[in-house]
């Protein structure tokens, strides 16, 4: 039993932290900053760890904490270091790293329970900074552990005499009780589409994907990455691998080395007519910080908040900076659309003068020998097919006349070389041509029937304009190296060039990866991509159409109120209720006391009943019967439910006049 003090013993500012509290705090903060440590410069990680260790040393030795000036000095030096490293201290990365450091500094001035609780809250805040970088399942699991540890620390602060295992149990119970409310809030809290204000400039760096230009090496370096570009879920049968051309940005302008999108404008969307086959599917696109969306072949519908450009490219109205889900209908081989603007066609014929003379000469030769554009195209395909071209991720470097060198000398390249050369040849021969970049293929996951398209599926092909058929897709890579399109990149490229997981023999490993990714996809769709639209869809399917924030808030408060009531019921469940016999007796005593016959503490029930019967002769019989019934129920051998009910009824019906 502790000595009574006059200061309020629960005042957090008055209670000093124990070594155990410090150890818990440091441990849980270590879990939180572990992922940051991999991104921070080594010296900053080391400094933070030293600060943690220093604080623990102080606690073990019961030494006074360092002076405010020393802590301030460390902070200044660290900020200078960050400035030297990043040339700013206000960006996202330097800001977060400084916050991590401040957690260490905060510990150094943690004396009371209030400081410790504030440090724990800082820990909660640091958890969220991890999500700015990654929100994968492993990150979520690790941060779940961190939430658990920090909460146990808080429980430890509130109950210093308890053991750590019981504090952990309490924290677990609290989190378990929090889960239903968290779910309700997650689903029903009125969502607002961010951002609310401008984000730091470096907020969206590090996103991979196709770009606005294509030059030799662009796609082959992208294809080294097995990061996911998007996933597609088909209603019904998915198209065959060789037909899965996912159209991305179209390249119009060529300067001899690089293809660029050039100027573009939006047009009104008109769905194509006819078509051999339609596919309905949903795409979950990873953020790439660009406008364009990917569609299979010819899109026959337009997703929400998207427009159509003049060349049939679907573009979102805002940059895709978070994972985006959209639904599409695509048509395979629609009726030809042969109307095209003459200006556009002229643009599709432009070649830079003074480049690739041999290719220009070859194209002129084909033009001479052919009567129609189709014939020119066929000759070009035949040329590539018989040219014994090699498909490689590491093509040789090319000089000024890149197309010439590739076609006639090195004869080895990646799809951008084939597409670039073919489009150049077509334009030189007078056939309007453009380069299409995008993805080809994608792996069908056997576990959830979802096609996963990776950056390694990046591809480039061409489209030529034929007067009778409109724009027609020609894949020169498929002509030269058919295996690329039939079986995917890993079968077409020499094995030594592939990264471990892309190699064909590691099937079992890929099977595991497929399972994991099926799970990750569910995670993405149900957790990470729950946004205002999904919220509306979900509520619509529950019968709450056009729910505005008022409806949502009302629903939310109803659910939370019910949950709190359920929790309250739980909290009282394991507390003994007063004995019904005792309650009835108490009510009886109160009734008599109101008539001036108060039971004195030492008085037994028999004496009391006798005295009350004497004092209130009108109710004498009833009082005596209640007294003997109570004695029988309370002290007798057994108390029957009928007896209890009778006692309660008699007390209720007792009339004292």
């Amino acid at each position, binding site marked *: *039993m502790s000595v*009574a003090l*006059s200061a*309020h*013993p*629960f005042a*957090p500012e008055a209670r000093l932290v124990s070594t155990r509290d410090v150890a818990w705090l440091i441990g849980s903060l270590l879990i939180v900053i572990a992922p940051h440590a991999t991104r921070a410069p080594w010296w900053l990680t080391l400094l933070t760890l030293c600060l943690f260790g220093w604080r623990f040393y102080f606690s073990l030795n019961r030494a006074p904490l360092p002076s405010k000036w020393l802590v301030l000095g460390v902070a200044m030096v660290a900020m200078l270091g960050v400035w030297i490293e990043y040339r700013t201290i206000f960006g996202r990365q330097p800001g977060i790293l400084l916050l991590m450091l401040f957690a260490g500094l905060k510990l150094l001035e943690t004396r009371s*329970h209030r400081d410790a*609780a504030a440090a724990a*809250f800082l820990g*909660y*805040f640091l*958890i*969220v900074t991890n999500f700015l970088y990654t*929100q994968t399942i492993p*990150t*979520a699991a690790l*941060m779940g552990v961190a939430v658990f540890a920090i*909460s146990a620390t*808080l*429980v430890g602060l*509130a*109950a210093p005499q*308890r053991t750590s295992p*019981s504090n952990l149990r*309490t*924290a677990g*119970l*609290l*989190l378990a*009780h*929090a*889960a239903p*409310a*968290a779910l309700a*809030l*997650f689903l029903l*809290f009125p*969502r*607002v589409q*961010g*951002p*609310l*204000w401008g*984000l730091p400039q470096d*907020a969206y760096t590090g996103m991979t994907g196709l770009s606005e230009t294509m030059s030799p090496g662009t796609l082959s370096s992208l294809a080294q990455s097995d990061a996911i570009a998007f996933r597609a879920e088909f209603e019904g049968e998915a198209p065959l691998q060789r037909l899965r051309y996912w159209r991305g940005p179209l390249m119009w302008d060529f300067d001899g080395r690089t293809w660029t999108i050039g100027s573009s404008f939006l047009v009104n969307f008109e769905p194509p007519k006819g078509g051999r086959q339609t596919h309905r599917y949903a795409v979950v696109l990873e953020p790439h910080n660009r406008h364009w969306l990917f569609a299979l072949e010819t899109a026959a519908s337009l997703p929400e908040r998207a427009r159509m450009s003049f060349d049939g490219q679907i573009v979102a109205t805002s940059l895709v*900076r978070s994972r985006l889900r959209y639904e599409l209908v695509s048509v395979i081989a629609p009726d030809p659309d042969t109307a095209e603007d003459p200006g556009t066609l002229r643009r599709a014929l432009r070649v830079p003068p003074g480049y690739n003379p041999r290719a220009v000469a070859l194209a002129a030769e084909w033009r001479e020998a052919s009567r129609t554009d189709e014939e020119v195209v066929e000759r070009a395909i035949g040329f590539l097919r018989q040219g014994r071209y090699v498909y490689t991720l590491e093509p040789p470097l090319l000089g000024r006349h890149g197309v010439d060198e590739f076609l006639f000398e090195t004869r080895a390249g990646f799809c951008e070389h084939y597409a670039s050369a073919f489009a150049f040849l077509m334009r030189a021969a007078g056939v309007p041509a453009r380069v299409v970049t995008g993805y080809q293929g994608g792996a069908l996951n056997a576990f959830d029937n979802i096609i996963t398209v990776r950056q390694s599926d990046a591809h480039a092909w061409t489209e030529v304009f034929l007067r009778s058929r409109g724009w027609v897709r020609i894949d020169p890579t498929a002509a030269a190296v058919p295996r690329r399109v039939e079986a995917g990149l890993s079968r077409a490229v020499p094995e030594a060039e592939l990264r471990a997981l892309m190699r064909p023999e590691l099937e079992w490993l890929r099977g595991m990866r497929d399972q994991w990714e099926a799970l990750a996809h569910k995670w993405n769709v149900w*957790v*990470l*991509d729950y*946004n205002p639209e999904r919220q509306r869809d979900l509520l619509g399917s529950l019968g709450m159409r056009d729910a505005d924030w008022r409806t949502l808030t009302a629903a939310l408060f109803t659910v939370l109120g019910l949950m*709190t009531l359920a*929790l*309250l019921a739980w*909290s*009282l469940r*394991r*507390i*003994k209720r007063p004995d019904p016999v005792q309650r009835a007796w108490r009510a009886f005593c109160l009734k008599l006391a109101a008539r001036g016959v108060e039971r004195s*503490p030492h008085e037994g029930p028999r004496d009391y009943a006798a005295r009350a019967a004497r004092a209130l002769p009108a109710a004498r019989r009833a009082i005596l019967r209640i007294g003997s019934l109570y004695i029988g129920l309370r002290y007798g051998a057994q108390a029957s439910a009928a007896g209890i009910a009778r006692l309660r009824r008699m007390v209720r019906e007792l009339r004292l006049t």
Partner: protein
Amino acid sequence: MIESLLARAPRFANWVYGFTPPERGTVVLVHRRVYIVPTRLGWLFGATLVILLIGSINYALSLGFVLTFLLAGMGLAGMVHTARNLARIAVSAGRAEPVYAGESAQFRLYLDGRAAFERPAILARHLRSGAQLVVDIAPGALAEVVLAVPASSRGWLALGRVMLETRFPLGLFRAWSYIEPDARCLVYPRPERSPLPPYTAEAASGAMRSPTPGNDDFAGLRGYQLSDSPRHVAWKAVARSGDMLTKQFTGEAAAQLWLDWALLGAALGVEQRLSRLAGWALAADRAGTLYGLRLPGVEIAPGRGDAHRGACLQALALFQEPGK
């Protein structure tokens, strides 16, 4: 401000607190009597949640939302847990041993958890004196709280209002309840050390009926009784025989010391006269003499032993000057 308002309107205060003091028997802290508000730490936690929410909206962080809502749910669950920690505790007051004015009365409260779970970190605080104690109630067990309340003046000291408070498990909420059990402690006058009244002619009023002390005839030995003064133990005989023996004097039956209110001048004042009488009573008790007490309107026949001393001191503690 609210405190003073409640002090001026006791009926309103009773309605607010949910009971009418003092409360007899066992007091159960039903929900009506348990209040709960966020602590300063709780408000800080709320501010953290708001910042987390804004950050999650701004950066469209789904896991940020998950974290924010999980913590919000934890705060809500914590509130219920805090209320539960105090809910339906049965409080009963134990006996408080009499003390002398100037000492501390030791009030005992028994907190019966009446639950299958433990109730850690419960503070019992005596509001008037600030005496307080933190206890843990184990599952299904009873915890004893001893509140040391300073007793400044003689008479009955009522325990008064006691606050039970808890902030377990997270420290974000503070739940408390007031009780005012019917517990009181008898406070004797502060005893003043002074020599026993002299055996003089004043004794004519009856303070001393034997001739002179010490001249009593030694009459023999008898068996020792617990109430016998150590000065009357026949130590030589004890050393010889090993049995505790007490010397008996023939004059003893008559040797009665009357501690009389009238012996003390009115100049001393009531309290000081009572203090001196209390001091005499203790001294006489130590000496082992028979003594009686005479106060205006009260007379306690001569006697000795703990019960007699208690009766005398109680009479002194509760003495009211007649006509006042």
